[in-house]
């Protein structure tokens, strides 16, 4: 079976760190977006019509908030996958280290 190893030990460790950080931070951002936090208003891509042409304000803005929140959760899930790959790489690197010495 061809070697599944494609990055060195340092790169795999970096991948792990960024993945864990990404999962935690994007997860929390997802929660904050879903609860319509006011501080994150600048990050929600609303337009003028979302404010003025809303029949039941602020439902459109809330819908946008929810959407961005779901985006964050999806990105966090992708980072879980990236983290799993990095973990595999770290394990493979360790095994290769044992075999060489």
């Amino acid at each position, binding site marked *: 079976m061809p070697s599944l190893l494609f990055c060195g030990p340092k790169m795999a460790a970096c991948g792990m760190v*960024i993945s864990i950080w*990404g999962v935690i*931070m994007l997860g929390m951002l997802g929660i904050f977006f879903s609860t319509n936090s006011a*501080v994150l208003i600048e990050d929600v891509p609303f337009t003028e019509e979302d404010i003025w042409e809303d029949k039941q304000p602020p439902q459109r803005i809330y819908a946008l908030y929810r959407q961005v929140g779901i985006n964050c959760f999806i990105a966090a899930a992708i980072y879980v996958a990236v983290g799993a790959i990095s973990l595999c790489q770290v394990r493979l690197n360790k095994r290769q280290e044992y075999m060489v010495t």
Partner: protein
Amino acid sequence: IKMVFRSEEMCLAQLFLQSGSEYDCISELGELGLVEFRDLNPSVSSFQRRFVSEIKRCEEMERILGFLLREIQKAKIAVPQEDESPLAPPPRQVLEIMEQLQRLEMELSEVAKNKDKLQRNLLELTEYTHMLKITRTFIHSRSRKTRRGPNLISPGCSFISGLIQRVKVEAFERMLWRVCKGYTILSYTEVDESLADLDTGEISKSVVFLISFWGDQIGHKVQKICDCYHCHLYPHPENDEERADVLDSLRTRIQDLNNVLHRTDDYLRQVLQKAAESAYTWVVQVKKMKAIYHILNLCSFDVTNKCLIAEVWCPVSDLANLRGALEKGSRKGDATVPSFVNRIPSSDTPPTLLRSNKFTTGFQSIVEAYGVGDYREVSPAPYTIITFPFLFAVMFGDLGHGVIMSLFALWMVLTEKNQKKKRSSNEIWMTFFHGRYIILMMGLFSIYTGLIYNDCFSKSLNIFGSGWSVKAMFTNQQWTNKTVQTNALLTLDPNVSGVFSGPYPFGIDPIWNLAVNRLSFLNSYKMKMSVIVGVIHMSFGVVLSVFNHLHFRQKFSVYLLFLPELLFLICLFGYLVFMILYKWLAFSARNSSQAPSILIHFINMFVMQGKDVTPLYPGQTGLQVFLLLIAVMCVPVLLLGKPLYLYWQQRGGKGLRRRRFPGSPQGYERVRRVSEDDGSITSIHEEDEEEGFDEVTSREAPKQFDFADVLLHQAIHTIEFCLGCISNTASYLRLWALSLAHAQLSEVLWAMVMRLGFKVTTKVGVVFLVPVFGLFAMLTVSILLVMEGLSAFLHALRLHWVEFQNKFYHGTGVKFLPFDFSQLPSVFEQDGLL
């Protein structure tokens, strides 16, 4: 955590080492690392010292070990390192080790020589094989061509064949043509395989050539030319059968040679493997031996007593351990009489020793980078443990970044045993690793200030619920839908009931993150906070100088130096702090429009103009004049007080100067080799030790008191202090500046990087957020953590070194460097061989 207030008390001691056991005693002392040896033979060159031959022997052994380690490294064998450091071998074992090493060296060089010879042989045979194969093609191809020119194989022609380097072929051909003028035919082809030239080691292409010629004279000329061009000549076979025979025999010989070479390699590897097992032990033993002989060279020989005398600086608290070590050494050695220690008085300044554990070492080293403290001076290190991370955190102040920094430092702390074993050669990493506790403290304090500034990756956290309510502006009919539609920016008025329900319980209210005038609010707050922190830090520094004055028996300094300094600082800048706090407390949202500018009032205080400005509080002008008068009166007291007092003291006072003070020169008499009776008199109480005073020197006349020198020094100190107060207070404003820069950088990074990831809302665009976050993470670490972190570290350090320490710290001492085997650098580790 052991807090060290001032450096330890040291004493000078004489060690009398009996001639049989001196090696073992010094070995014991080296293992414990208790004392610092002084050089008793400074005028003797290193070649004339007593133990020069032993050191030469050690250096010879080191040379052989270096050669051995290089060979081991070339063969890629790992050297096992033990945790327990082996002891220095007794002198009788030394010859054994020396003999072993020499035998190994001889064996290795012989094997290397043999290998070289075999490889040369192999190269020759390989070249011969190539030559035979290629000339075969020449002969056969030529024999077909019968067109022009003389035939290569005409009767009577002789052949010379061999190999020459590719780069020389053209010149060779031209030379042949010029000399032999057509009586030779040269044909050549390049060899496919590039062969290594054994003398230079470089791999180059060679060319096989075949020269056919007629006549003996031509033959000699050709021979000479071939010699010139360093060709490797091989005999050319007469016919094909001979060629085939020679090729066969060559093949078998090459095979045999390869076998032998393999076996030689295996044998070499075996030898090196065996040597590698004990290499580490030998290296450590030789290093310790050499160190012991070096120390023995520092001692002086007392011929009459047949023992070695050493002078050491020893901490007073360690004298019992020193005696114990000497007893242990004497027992191991051969002497009948045990060695002993004798404490002697000294007027030299002892070196400074501050004990530290793995936590305080980092902070100690950043204080000592500025300067090692004077003997028995108050050390700023214990306070630095708290103030340095705090000032860093004030400039760094971000919750998210603080968490990442703390986690990184925590990882380093938890894996410190593994890291110490690995002993990486990357200097930058080692610097970070040595400062792991500092980084951990900085990270934890940054979490605290991040919560106060309410800044987490440039976003505020709403933990307790904001104290401002926008809805109240609507319910009180201040704003309508029309106001919102027609105005781009609106101001919340705290005087309207319900808008402001009270301050946020901990930190800055999160609503400020959404406000456009956020910076003007935060700037005012951070600038005032910086001045307050600065004045407190500097006052603390001035207060610490009292301890120095009292310890060095300069009680007058407390009244003539400390008091004016403190009064000057408090009356001027302490009053500024008071005004800041008063303005914060006295004015509320109702009368905030009438709140005056503190700076204007402060300036008016100095210019003594304040008639047309409404006072902050009743009686302000009177109080300010009073404080200004006190401050102005402090200056001449600071300038003239101490010189006049010392002048008076010298003329009519005690007559004998009690203690030296910085700035005036003083000669130090060396008290060496005090005889036995003096030794018994000076079993000493503390004061004389510290005063550096002795029966001997007290009989001499006191040094000349130079009034002009003292006055000049004091004038410089006064100007420095008074002007420094103003500039140093302003210098603390960097706390505001750097925290502003950090906050803005953080905000820009979020707005320009992360926001791009959120703006994309198409179905597929979701994946865009993943690399955007990766980029955000990398930029956060590289710009905000590393760059800003180093910047804040540097500025916090500068604030400590200059603004804090110049109020009380001299830092002109010498560090105590004990003779300790574990502190000795290993030459091999530096070369990367171990």
